[in-house]
């Protein structure tokens, strides 16, 4: 108890889940969509709650571009709260008193799962750019291995926002009989040219940083400037015109008058600078390249094929979008809903009004909590025949 208190003082974060720990699962090999084989493959994952005897209460949470396996609780390693602490925990939307919640780091990432910064067993050096290109489908196939390892036959729910939402859709596509309910949030059936363009600018920023060195910078340098710029671009697309106005206005940082120079003097400039600088301390530049590429390649299929594929599927969907999300605008969620309706799949859709942009699903909001809580409650009661 005393130790816990001390830790709490050190970290300053509290969670009803207490401390959580990242675990690892390694398997032999994964054949990738590109035809290449990744071997061996390690998956970093965390779990919250208890898997019941029938193993029908498992929920897989899929993270977005820069997320990780640490979705909830206070990390034993870093002392930080999980990225979806607002949604996961006892009595929360993903209720850990009821459900067994799993979150794993995607392959290609840099938070414990095999990625470009992992050691290539053939060379004894980090992969760098020799790491094979992975896709959303590959990420999902790797997760499926983890689920198999946990001896779970069917997932009660797969949920996630943004790139996490793409994984949700891919899960249902690839393993239609293994997903009872699906919650794709602020996502799309396929990446659009606008979305690819933003990612490409981010990648070019990294690759044109001299410190990137063709991706072989490990142990020598780090393309911090390039990665920071990539993150700044990303952050702009995650906010909205309105939320930026509300948050920053035209306020200057620590001064009253313009400096008539090129220092970061507007609040918004300072904020982006700060976001960029903190990001480079926690994320690998090559992973940023690989994951954004995976997102850009994402195209679940054309609508006609998808309708055929999903026809009469018993999986229940809850699709959520956010009104001021201009990166994955509501029309893209409605497209998902349209395909599912044509296929006679049970789908509930809500566009939540929020002044926040794409990031809204990561920010505490009662609407999202309500939708997910009740959607899961009803589906779980049905599953249990109540």
């Amino acid at each position, binding site marked *: 108890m005393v130790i816990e208190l001390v830790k709490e003082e050190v970290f300053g974060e509290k969670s009803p889940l207490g401390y959580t720990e990242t675990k690892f699962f390694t398997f032999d090999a994964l054949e990738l969509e590109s035809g290449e084989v990744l071997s061996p493959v390690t998956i970093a994952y965390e779990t919250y709650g208890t898997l019941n005897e029938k193993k029908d209460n498992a929920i897989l949470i899929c993270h977005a571009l820069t997320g990780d396996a640490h979705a909830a609780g206070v990390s034993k390693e870093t002392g930080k709260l999980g990225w979806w602490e607002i949604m996961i925990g006892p009595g929360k939307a993903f209720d850990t008193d009821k459900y067994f919640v799993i979150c794993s780091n995607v392959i290609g990432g840099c938070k414990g799962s095999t990625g470009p910064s992992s050691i290539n067993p053939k060379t004894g050096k980090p992969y760098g750019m020799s790491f094979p290109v992975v896709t959303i489908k590959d990420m999902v196939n790797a997760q499926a291995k983890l689920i198999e390892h946990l001896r779970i036959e069917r997932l009660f729910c797969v949920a996630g926002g943004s790139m996490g939402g793409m994984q949700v859709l891919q899960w249902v596509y690839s393993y239609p009989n293994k997903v009872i309910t699906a919650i794709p949030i602020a996502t799309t059936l396929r990446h659009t040219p606008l979305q690819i363009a933003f990612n490409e600018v981010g990648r070019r920023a990294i690759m044109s940083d001299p410190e990137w060195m063709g991706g072989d910078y490990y142990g020598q340098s780090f393309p911090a400037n390039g990665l920071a710029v990539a993150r700044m671009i990303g952050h702009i697309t995650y906010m909205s015109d309105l939320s930026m106005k509300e948050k920053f206005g035209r306020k200057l940082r620590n001064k009253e008058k313009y400096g008539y120079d090129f220092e970061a003097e507007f609040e918004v400039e300072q904020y982006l600078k700060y976001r960029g600088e903190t990001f480079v301390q926690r994320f690998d530049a090559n992973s940023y390249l690989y994951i954004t590429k995976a997102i850009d390649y994402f195209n679940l299929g054309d609508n006609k094929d998808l309708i055929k594929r999903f026809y009469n599927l018993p999986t229940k969907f*809850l699709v959520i979008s956010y009104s001021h999300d201009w990166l994955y605008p509501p029309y893209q969620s*409605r497209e998902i*809903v*349209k395909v599912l*309706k*044509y296929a*006679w799949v*049970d*789908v*509930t*859709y*809500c*566009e*939540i*009004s929020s002044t926040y942009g794409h990031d809204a699903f990561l920010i505490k909001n009662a*609407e999202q909590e*309500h*939708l997910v809580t*009740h*959607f899961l409650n*009803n*589906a779980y009661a*049905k599953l249990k025949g109540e």
Partner: protein
Amino acid sequence: MRHFERFDFKIIFDIIEQGSKVLDLGCGDGELLRILTEHKSVRGVGIENDEKMIYACVSKGVTVEHGDIDEGLPDFPDKFFDYVILNFTLQETKKPKKVIHEALRVGEKVIVSFPNFAYYPVRFYLGILGKTPRTKALPYHWDETPNLHYFTIKDFIEFCERENIKIVFYKAFTEHRLIKFLPNFFAEKAVFLLKGA
């Protein structure tokens, strides 16, 4: 016999066959769909524009889509549903004619209900008091009503003739009573069953 708190629900419930495919336009809190799903095993979807109502539907486990029916129903192929329901929705739409035709396109049959603007207390308000009517079926002040169109049973029958829409039957009622004598005068509300010509 089931007990219905709302007489319109009872009329609609009796029309719809077991296991039908149903689209409820402007489904509100989803209560009608919930009853139909539970007791008639319909495959039902609701469309609702009011975000708060979406949360009510989800609480009940009713499948609902957040959308504006005035924009049409481009997401649905022709004759996708057995029944399309417009239960006290039509008078709140911007383009009732377009909405009805879209409903007839995607549904084999269409159920429309609305408050009758020629109901005698309504006539009293307008004709004698010279005020915008406020009755049980039309409870709002003029400045905050969601109703955009006011029409009568007679109006609606004429509309259907004009638009070449077949009226299978209609039931006019006040409270829990069917009104057969001078319905355009004595009935507060009406439910129509329509078919495309």
